[in-house]
């Protein structure tokens, strides 16, 4: 592994959820600790499964990991960081300011931006603090999913410029102004990442085309931020043996083709390839085997008695959905579980059944086939592009609100619109407008990864409270949004997962979060399952057998909502 031999003091693993960042960073941390180095492992994933992987409770302060000498681990939970930040701001005024004033302060500090900033604040503090980081020979970061990470990285450099150029003193920096003193700490954190002598950024991805091009995009964005010491780790490559069954051959061929079509930008990076593991990498002993090469599958990877009746086919779900005439269908789940693919399949099925359908993605990294819409007159395909939404929204505001201002006023407004909040608002409005269409026809949305999705929902909720207070005129689509998301006859939420440990855990967390927001899923789909296939290759058969316990877990926890299964297939199934 080149990221082990060419490693700098700080190693950052980045990539979409489910690509194996946690496994690789934990295994790397153990690798260095076993060599006698003092290692700190930092996790920043809001849906962390670090506890399961390391088989110990990981908290917000560094603590030793049982079973590995020299290794300490900590987890930065963004929600908890935001809570602490709110308390830091409001706490001193309890009993000093009136209760209603405190409540309104708390509400204003509950937005998406506070969470982002508070998490980055923790991250920057850790990087900048000699007291903490100075005690270690090596620091390994298991960062949050790509989009989120990039945002965290992009924010301060954007704000760097913003703070310097904003002279009005009213700057729309939201909660950041509370952290103005931290400005230098943020700057240091960025410099720390940019310093190739000290830090390496490892892009983790799967051997498939979508994952590789996602990594290429991330690579370019990081380079733009001046982060150039990059490596790539391709995780979970499967090599078929001669005489293998057709599933094994097509999976192997698919991996081989994807690697052959690897984007040029990634070819120049030092590359590590990790084979598909025949075991679930949970626990210290298993983690120690991750870089050891694939051990031959043992006899213990036997196929259990197939007493479990498999859930009905995904097609059955499509049939159920097609019985209606309109409404919003959202596929939700962590990145990499196939939300976009399933949303596309649902939209195609509905269109084939004669329904009018609008298929749209809010995931900036999604790969929708926009040519589909041209082939079918009942199908419309679109994407919420954040950059475009911001541009449209800015233009609209400048035209409406800016027209009544003088030149200086317009310049000031334009400057305020450059704030990071504008993107949240612009995307939110586009989302609400799409949901609104569902009253007349079908709207199929593949939402962005969990964290972002929940931010949207959370934003919907707090905006909802805000709506009652504000005198400004609001589009009806926004007033209606949350009640519609909660109405299970209008919005049908499909939770998508894979029959693997981390995705299942994330799906269960997602369902829990939805429940707290008063939203009930319509159905669950286990995607890319090997279970319905007949498999002879021992490594894949072992993987297939591992799926049983995950399916059982989903069936037990999802009831009474129905569960459907979509078999793994080499190329997307058409209708």
């Amino acid at each position: 592994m080149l990221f082990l031999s060419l490693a700098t003091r700080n190693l950052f693993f980045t990539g979409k959820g489910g690509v194996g960042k946690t496994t690789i960073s934990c295994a790397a941390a153990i690798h260095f600790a076993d060599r006698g180095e003092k290692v700190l492992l930092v996790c920043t994933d809001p849906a962390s499964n670090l506890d399961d992987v390391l088989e110990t409770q990981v908290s917000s302060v560094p603590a030793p990991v049982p079973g590995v000498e020299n290794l300490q681990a900590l987890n930065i939970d963004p929600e908890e960081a935001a809570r602490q930040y709110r308390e830091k701001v409001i706490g001193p005024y309890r009993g000093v300011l009136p209760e209603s004033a405190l409540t309104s302060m708390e509400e204003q500090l509950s937005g998406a931006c506070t969470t982002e900033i508070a998490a980055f604040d923790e991250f920057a503090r850790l990087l900048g603090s000699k007291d903490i980081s100075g005690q270690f020979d090596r620091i390994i970061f298991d960062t949050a999913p790509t989009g989120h990470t990039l945002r965290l990285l992009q924010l301060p450099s954007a704000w760097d410029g913003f703070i310097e150029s904003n002279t009005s003193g009213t700057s729309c920096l939201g909660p950041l102004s509370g952290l103005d003193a931290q400005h230098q700490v943020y700057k240091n954190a960025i410099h720390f990442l940019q310093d190739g002598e000290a830090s390496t950024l490892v892009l983790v991805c799967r051997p498939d085309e979508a994952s590789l091009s996602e990594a290429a995009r991330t690579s370019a964005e990081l380079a733009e931020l001046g982060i150039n010491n990059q490596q790539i780790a391709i995780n979970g490559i499967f090599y078929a043996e001669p005489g293998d069954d057709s599933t094994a051959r097509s999976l192997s061929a698919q991996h081989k083709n994807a690697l052959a079509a690897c984007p040029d930008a990634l070819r120049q990076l030092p590359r590590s390839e990790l084979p598909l593991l025949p075991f679930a990498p949970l626990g210290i002993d298993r983690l120690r085997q991750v870089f050891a090469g694939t051990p031959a599958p043992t006899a213990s990877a036997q196929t259990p008695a197939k007493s479990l009746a498999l859930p009905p086919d995904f097609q059955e779900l499509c049939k159920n959905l097609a019985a209606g005439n309109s409404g919003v269908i959202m596929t939700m789940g962590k990145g990499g579980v196939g939300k976009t693919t399933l949303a596309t399949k649902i939209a195609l099925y509905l269109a084939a059944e004669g329904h009018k359908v609008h298929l749209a993605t809010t995931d900036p990294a999604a790969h929708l086939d926009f040519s589909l819409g041209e082939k079918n007159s009942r199908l419309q395909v679109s994407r919420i592009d954040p950059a475009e939404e911001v541009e449209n929204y800015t233009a609209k505001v400048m035209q409406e609100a800016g027209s009544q201002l003088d030149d200086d006023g317009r310049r000031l407004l334009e400057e305020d619109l450059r704030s990071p909040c504008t993107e949240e608002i612009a995307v939110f409005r586009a989302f609400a407008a799409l949901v609104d269409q569902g009253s007349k026809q079908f709207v199929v949305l593949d939402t962005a990864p969990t964290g972002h999705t929940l931010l949207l929902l959370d934003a919907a909720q707090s905006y909802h409270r805000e709506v009652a207070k504000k005198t400004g005129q609001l589009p009806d689509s926004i007033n209606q949004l949350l009640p519609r998301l909660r109405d299970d006859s209008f919005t049908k939420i499909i939770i998508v997962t894979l029959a693997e440990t981390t995705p299942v855990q994330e799906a269960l967390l997602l369902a829990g979060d939805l429940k707290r927001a008063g939203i009930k899923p319509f159905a669950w789909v286990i995607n890319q399952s090997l279970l319905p296939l007949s498999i002879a290759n021992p490594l894949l058969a072992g993987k297939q057998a591992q799926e049983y316990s995950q399916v059982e877990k989903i069936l037990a926890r999802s009831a009474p909502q129905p569960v459907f299964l979509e078999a793994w297939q080499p190329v997307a199934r058409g209708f």
Partner: protein
Amino acid sequence: MDRLEIFEPAMCCSSGVCGTNVDQRLVQFTADLDWLKSRGVKVERYNLAQQPDKFVQSEPVKNAMALADDKCLPIILADGRIVAQNTYPDRSTLARLAGLTTE
């Protein structure tokens, strides 16, 4: 007059561009304050969600809030005295409060 201080309710920010819709009143007010500044008036703006310390440190503001919670906001002080409550004055009123005349 030396300075104008504005104590505003808890807001994500004071520019008026945050929220699901742009608050035209705040956008205008922000521009008006900028205009005052360009004419040499010292203007300070405090947001309850961001600078609660300023609210506590100002006796008149603290007293007004003790009586009417945050419903009295925004409060405008001219040289430390309350000159407006629960309203965003327009440009000509602001100019008068600051001892200027509009062109």
